[in-house]
């Protein structure tokens, strides 16, 4: 039989090994991403890769400029954020400050469950419901475009934004709220001037995590963004965001061809974007954490 001490050691070791393995695998994936992506820069310079205006990876000679894809991703993310932030934050304010506790207890879990909606379902909805609607009512060539993709991505990030913002708003200390009301402020003034400023770090974090979700999302943009690798001139032009390119082209890119390396390099760019978003979110939530009665 093992002694108590040996058992303890065994349990600790097992947990350590499991933790190590999962982290190690993620690191290996990252390493692999860089190993498979960096060789493209022997063919094309970093500047031409990022800012080249033409993405013709299969032409002869091929052009590996991902600028249209980069712009597509940024536009789609920006527009979806523009749509999702008012919806998500206002819903959060409603749930935390205005709705009755009973209603909050029902609606909050539902909103959180919506975060688990499979993206392919949202993409499908965008394809068969939103796209024909846009096409018919706005008289467009195709309803699969930047606007449709942004709208669908917005619906995907609303639950994230709403849930995290709601937590932040709800945890604003009651003393602050009472302090404001006791000075003769109305409920609305209290929300705008005290509660939102006090929960701003949580709200900002939620917005950036929502953006990070939108920029990395693949299935929705693959299905509804339209897929044209060009710089859009209007929000109703089709675009081809970075994840959609990778997903669409990886199967047909020959192993270790320049096209293959280029797709991995797009993966690196995408990775750096989400990494930056997450670091900013982390930074905001730590640095702007308030002290004293206003601690979140």
């Amino acid at each position, binding site marked *: 039989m093992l002694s108590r001490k040996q058992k303890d050691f065994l349990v600790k070791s097992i947990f350590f090994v499991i933790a190590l393995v999962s982290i190690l695998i993620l690191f290996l994936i990252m390493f692999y991403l860089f190993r498979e992506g960096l060789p493209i820069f022997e063919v094309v310079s970093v500047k031409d890769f990022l800012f080249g205006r033409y993405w013709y990876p299969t032409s002869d000679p091929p052009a590996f400029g991902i600028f249209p894809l980069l712009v597509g991703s940024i536009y789609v993310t920006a527009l979806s954020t523009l749509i999702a932030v008012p919806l998500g934050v206002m819903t959060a304010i409603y749930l935390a400050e205005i709705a009755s506790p009973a209603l909050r207890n029902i609606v909050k879990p539902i909103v959180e469950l919506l975060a688990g909606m499979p993206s392919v379902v949202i993409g499908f909805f965008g394809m068969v419901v939103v796209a024909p609607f846009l096409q018919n009512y706005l008289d467009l060539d195709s309803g699969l475009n930047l606007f449709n993709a942004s709208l669908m991505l917005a619906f995907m990030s609303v639950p994230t934004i709403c849930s995290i913002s709601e937590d932040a708003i709800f945890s604003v200390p009651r003393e602050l709220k*009472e302090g404001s009301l006791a000075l*003769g402020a109305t409920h609305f003034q209290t929300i705008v*001037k005290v509660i939102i400023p006090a929960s701003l770090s949580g709200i900002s974090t939620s917005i950036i995590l929502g953006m990070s979700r939108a920029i990395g999302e693949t299935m929705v943009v693959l299905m509804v963004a339209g897929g044209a690798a060009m710089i859009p001139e209007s929000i109703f032009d089709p675009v081809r965001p970075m994840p959609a390119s990778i997903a669409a082209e990886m199967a047909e890119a020959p192993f270790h061809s320049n096209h293959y390396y280029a797709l991995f390099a797009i993966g690196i760019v995408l990775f750096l974007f989400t990494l930056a978003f997450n670091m900013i979110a982390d930074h905001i939530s730590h640095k702007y954490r308030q002290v004293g009665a206003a601690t979140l």
Partner: protein
Amino acid sequence: MGSEKRVKISVQNLNFYYGDFHALHDISMDMYENHVTALIGPSGCGKSTFLRCINRMNDLILGTRVEGKLLLDGKDLYDPKVDVVEVRRKVGMVFQKPNPFPKSIFENVAYGLRVNGVKDKKFIAHRVEESLKMAAIWDEVKDRLHSSALGLSGGQQQRLCIARALAMEPEVLLMDEPASALDPIATQKIEDLIFELKKRFTIVIVTHNMQQAARVSDYTAFFYMGRLVEVDTTDVIFTRPKEKQTEDYITGRFG
């Protein structure tokens, strides 16, 4: 106490309920203008609940109910026609824990004026200075009015909160154990302040500290289990209370 004293707040058969819980039983008492009334009693006796009735702060808690009358200058604060925001402008409050807003010192004091629609910058600056002076904190903060209020010490924060309430020029100032989170020196400052402030305001203070009640107040009300046991001048309450319960509490035999 002069004979010219005037009733500022008159409470008549006030009952208060949290849902089914009957928290205050039939409270009747008067509070006088430019005097300090202390509310004392063991934890959970209803003194804070009673205090929060005076600026209708309990309205925020769902399922609460008030019966009876609470008159400020003869007008019932719980009349359905009364605007609660108006009540809170007249009846300021200082809370147990200092609760400055995460804003600058200046903005904390200016807040009440701003939310009440005051735009005149000169007037606001003047009132902020005046209030900070009245709260005896001006000298400590005058060089850093625009830095965060959260950088102040607890005692300074509490005096800032008092200044914030004074900026509204309330008629009544409610203080809910304003010194309970502070050290003895900061407490001393708050007590000196109360003595000054009663010249201009009517003050109602909840305190757990018997010596504090004896030092700062003109009248003392003793609450027990949601009932007002006895109210009289502080002198009488502390030297020859009529009720046995009051005497026991004052002398530390329970509570």
